[in-house]
């Protein structure tokens, strides 16, 4: 079975510094890592490969230095790494990202074989949207299984997959037809340590590197900043506040809670009213 895993290289959020004077994020010197959620997806893919045979291809869209993350994925035991990199992709939001990744996934299927299972992490630690996985599923017409905590069974002959999915109030046991897109939940497995041969192969491997044209993308208007309707208005470091969280002794429901809040935060009420009236 050929399995694709989409990963992202992200700044290590544990090591991001906020400039003491300008209050902006200091990116310089902040180490980058594989988005931690993606490692659960990668490990799950490697386990399926070990069980059923086949290959795992990791895909990332990013600047050339995202190569580091791909090599790391190879160190863990992935078989092939594809870097999707082009200045046309700069400034992509989740819509543009899922567009570009979908194109690359189609190309991967064409070049290296169909991928009945595509994995992504649950979300990224720098964007936190959890939109890219479902976006890919929609674009490629894959059944989507989000927040998966366990893969119970893959029936290759019957072309079905059964998984456990964590949902509010319990665990769902879901079965669907392949091909699927799975977003893995964190804490569901632990990324392995590759062998010495894996590490050596990773260090000396030649990566597949595609630009937009290589990935068969014609419509550049759907890429990067141009293809991204999301607008970031402002990035700021929140000021530390003096007041602490408080428990309110209110019995009867949401309305009373809101009243309590508005008593303490009159400005908020005005703001919400403005927002509600569409001004």
């Amino acid at each position, binding site marked *: 079975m050929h399995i694709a895993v989409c990963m992202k290289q992200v700044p290590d959020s544990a090591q991001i*510094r906020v400039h*003491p004077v300008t209050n902006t994020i200091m990116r310089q010197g902040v180490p980058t890592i594989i988005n931690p959620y993606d490692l659960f997806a990668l490990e799950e893919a490697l386990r399926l490969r070990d069980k059923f045979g086949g290959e795992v291809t990791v895909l990332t869209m990013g600047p050339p230095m995202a190569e580091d993350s791909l090599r790391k994925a190879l160190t863990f035991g992935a078989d092939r790494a594809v870097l999707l990199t082009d200045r046309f992709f700069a400034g992509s939001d989740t819509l543009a990202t899922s567009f570009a990744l979908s194109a690359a996934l189609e190309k991967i299927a064409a070049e290296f074989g169909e991928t009945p299972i595509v994995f992504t992490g649950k979300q990224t630690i720098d964007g936190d949207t959890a939109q890219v996985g479902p976006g890919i599923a929609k674009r490629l017409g894959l059944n989507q299984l989000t927040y998966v905590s366990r893969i119970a069974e893959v029936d290759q002959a019957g072309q079905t997959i059964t998984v456990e999915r964590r949902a509010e109030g319990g665990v769902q046991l879901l079965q669907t037809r392949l091909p699927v897109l799975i977003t893995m939940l964190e804490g569901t497995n632990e990324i392995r340590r590759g062998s010495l041969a894996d590490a050596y192969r990773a260090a000396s491997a030649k990566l597949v590197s595609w630009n937009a044209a290589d990935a068969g993308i014609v419509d550049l208007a759907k890429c990067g900043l141009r293809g991204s309707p999301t607008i970031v208005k402002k990035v700021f470091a929140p000021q530390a506040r003096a007041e602490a969280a408080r428990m309110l002794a209110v019995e009867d429901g949401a309305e009373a809670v809101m009243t309590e809040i508005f008593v303490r935060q009159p400005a908020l009420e005005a703001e919400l009213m403005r927002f509600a009236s569409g001004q």
Partner: protein
Amino acid sequence: MIEEKFDAIVVGAGASGNACAYTMAKLGLKVLQLERGEYPGSKNVQGAILYADALEKIIPDFRDDAPLERHIVEQRQWTMTDSAHVGMHFRSEEFNEDRPNRYTIVRAQFDKWFSRKVREAGVTLLCETTVTELLRNNSGAVIGVRTDRADGVAFANIVVLAEGVNGLVGQRAGLRDVVTPESVALAVKEMHFLPREVIEERFNLKGNEGVVIEAMGTITKGMTGTAFLYTNAESISVGIGCLVSDFQGTGQTPYGLLEAFKNHPSIKSLLAGSECKEYAAHLIPEGGYKAIPQLYGDGWLVVGDAGQFVNAVHREGSNLAMTTGRIAGETIAWLKVRRDAATAANLSEYQRRLDASFVMKDLKKYKNIPDFLHKSGAHLFGLYPRLIAQAAQTWFRVDGKDKRAKESEIIKSFTRSRSLSGLLGDAFKLARAWR
């Protein structure tokens, strides 16, 4: 297991390992480098002063893209008491030269850069891979390494131990003794962030100029050790270290010393308003010439801190690491060209080349200093700083006392605290050790 056999395996990606791997790769050798850290530099600690000369001999145009913080234009040597410091400062416009001689660096960034050069030269580097054991053949010659990864065996004609001060791999293989508490210092350091302009104003700097403060005195509470403060571009490195045996003997803690040093009135104002973002601790070999272990044998040799190559008097370490790494690399490549095997007999060429270099000459020159410091430490790091500060205080205070009386007061303060023969004895011993 890695199927291919290498010309050399280098254990460690610090200054010495990088210098050695780079040199060999540039001379056409097939090199595998193994580093236990997540990335090169993640485990390495240094003040850090970079001495240009040693690196220039390896990468002549390193200034083009190496992450250098500031070049040093001013050196301050301080003798400190709890409330004062007596300083000797040397600042020269001539340090603003085209190819400055000393720079401050941040090791984590510098090592990453150096490692990139090493990989570009053709070395295969595997991180997060710890060498656990040397592999030997029936006659005892080293033929490869075992690592902590699954199927973790790799083979080479020679293994270069660039594993740093602890030398655990060499020690486990019985190639060297355990490092003793008397021969290593434990140093702690912090990085304090400050805006560029504040650093420049505070230390009277412009552009990329930098200042170094090296300090000794009662700040180490009678223990053998020194403290430092270096200006980086947007941060200050501050640290202190003492012999491990002294820490053991006194029960003092390294962080306690550092806290006191940072709060010393002469230092505190230099750090005011800064934000501490990094805390590190590391050992430094201080045993000097007499502590150098056997440096080579059948199929192996040692470079850098693992060989105790640190000149504690001049606070030089990374340059000795790079130089021994380079010389080892050149020797190994030279043997390959001659089709000579990496036997102990042939590798004695390494020792010969080292002996002819400044590395061994300097270490030999100071071979008695560690003993001297060990025996006279209490006076050097307690009594004398106090006397010197007291003398300065007496000398500079204008209080109606005549100058001759002041002179004799100063002299008396010295002879009262330490007999004349004691003073002369210390001076004589120091002179002899220094020779």
